[in-house]
């Protein structure tokens, strides 16, 4: 008899659970959205952007916004498991711990992309900038994946600490800098129509980051959750 529940089925169950629960309350996504919008407004006033300068800062503003909103989502997603002891519930099931990792990570990715999908058009409207760019979309997906793959691992640790809310950004941001730098440069490159040969090195870094950290994260996740 197959004792371990199949990986994909377990992973899908977790993703579905997170999406369904969030759909009910919509608390997390609305918090992320409001926060992201506020961010954009604050940048507007803080940076006093004139149209020329604004164009070159767009990708930076977008990624800072996504990074902060992403932290909210990551925190919330793991806090849900910590409350009511649900993480134990996941660990009690005869499933591969890696399936739990990927289930949570993909769920987090979906939320982050959802937020991106809403604020990018809004940003376009607010600043009269055309952001509908396939390259940009690709970078957002790659960047978000790298961010949540490390973020989910770190959040599963920080959620168990006393200083949980402050701790995740403190742990995540230094480690995410190469990702953010590459994402900003690559997005900027696509937005101002640079040659693909200029953008390629940044794409490289993004892909390398994604691959390396996804591998590290799922190898190490077991050690974080197993007592």
């Amino acid at each position, binding site marked *: 008899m197959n*004792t371990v529940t199949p990986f994909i089925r377990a992973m899908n169950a977790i993703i579905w659970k997170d999406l369904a629960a969030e759909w009910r309350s919509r608390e997390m996504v609305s918090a992320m959205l409001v926060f992201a919008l506020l961010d954009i407004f604050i940048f507007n006033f803080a940076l006093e952007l004139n149209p020329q300068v604004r164009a070159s800062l767009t990708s930076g503003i977008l990624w800072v916004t996504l990074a902060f909103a992403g932290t909210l989502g990551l925190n919330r997603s793991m806090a849900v498991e910590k409350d009511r002891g649900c993480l134990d519930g996941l660990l009690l099931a005869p499933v591969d711990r890696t399936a739990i990792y990927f289930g949570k990570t993909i769920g987090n990715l979906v939320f982050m992309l959802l937020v991106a999908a809403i604020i990018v058009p809004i940003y376009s409207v607010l600043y009269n900038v055309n952001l509908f760019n396939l390259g940009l979309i690709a970078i957002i997906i790659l960047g978000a994946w790298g961010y949540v793959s490390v973020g989910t691992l770190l959040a599963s640790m920080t959620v168990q600490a006393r200083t949980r809310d402050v701790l995740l950004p403190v742990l995540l941001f230094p480690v995410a800098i190469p990702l953010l730098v590459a994402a900003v440069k690559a997005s900027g490159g696509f937005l101002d129509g640079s040659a693909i040969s200029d953008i390629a090195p940044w794409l490289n870094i993004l892909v390398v980051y994604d691959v390396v950290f996804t591998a590290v994260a799922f190898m190490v996740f077991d050690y974080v959750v197993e007592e």
Partner: protein
Amino acid sequence: MLGWASKTDPTQQNITLMIEVNHLVKRFGPKTVLKNLDFQAQQGEFVALLGPNGAGKTTFLRILSSLSRQTLGEVIIAGYSLPHQAAAVRRQLGVVSHLPLLYGDLTAEENLQFYGRMYGVKGLEQRIGAVLELVGLAPRRRDLVRTFSRGMQQRLAIGRAIIHDPEVLLLDEPHTGLDQDACEMLDNVLRQVAARQRTVVMTSHDLVRVADLASRFDVLSRGAIRASTPRLGLPQDGLLAFYREALNTATIAPGGAP
């Protein structure tokens, strides 16, 4: 894999020995919480695990439920050993703690669906219906768990624990925070659940409550099982006397500190 024969009676067969724990030691850094703990449970037994706070009951249960790893010693459940055959053990375990392990933003049905999928339960829809009936929550099937009272959440938690029909049920102080009515409802469910030849280990502070439920009483104190008696073997003055006696013996155990 064949199980291990009981240490006291060599004619016992592994199929009825559901839980076997030998020389269990658990240390947290420099602190030793469980020292040389031996424990056994036959299939169908309902063991009440009693003991003062800090004795190590929760730690012991966490090790049995595979959430925590033993430092030394053997733990064999339903013939599978921990930690190496953890997945097989988990399939045979249902765990209820004082936290409900339920998702507040999902309905009762959805919670059971989730856990059913995680355990690979076949015929899930029907099973959910049966379980909800058993725990008396069928009318609240489509309600969000965060609207449930604590007593209802605990009952649903039991439902969650048995959705995959495990052999062994572990409960860690499930009556915590419940009022009298809720406790009685919980006990009813427990009796029905235990009745299907399931092996149950339940920790509790409430001697009155367990006196009715359990078929055997073990006292865990200062990291090891100090006394054990089946219900029939209880002294005249009842469970409380047995409990006090066991604790007294523990603190003045010969041979120095435990």
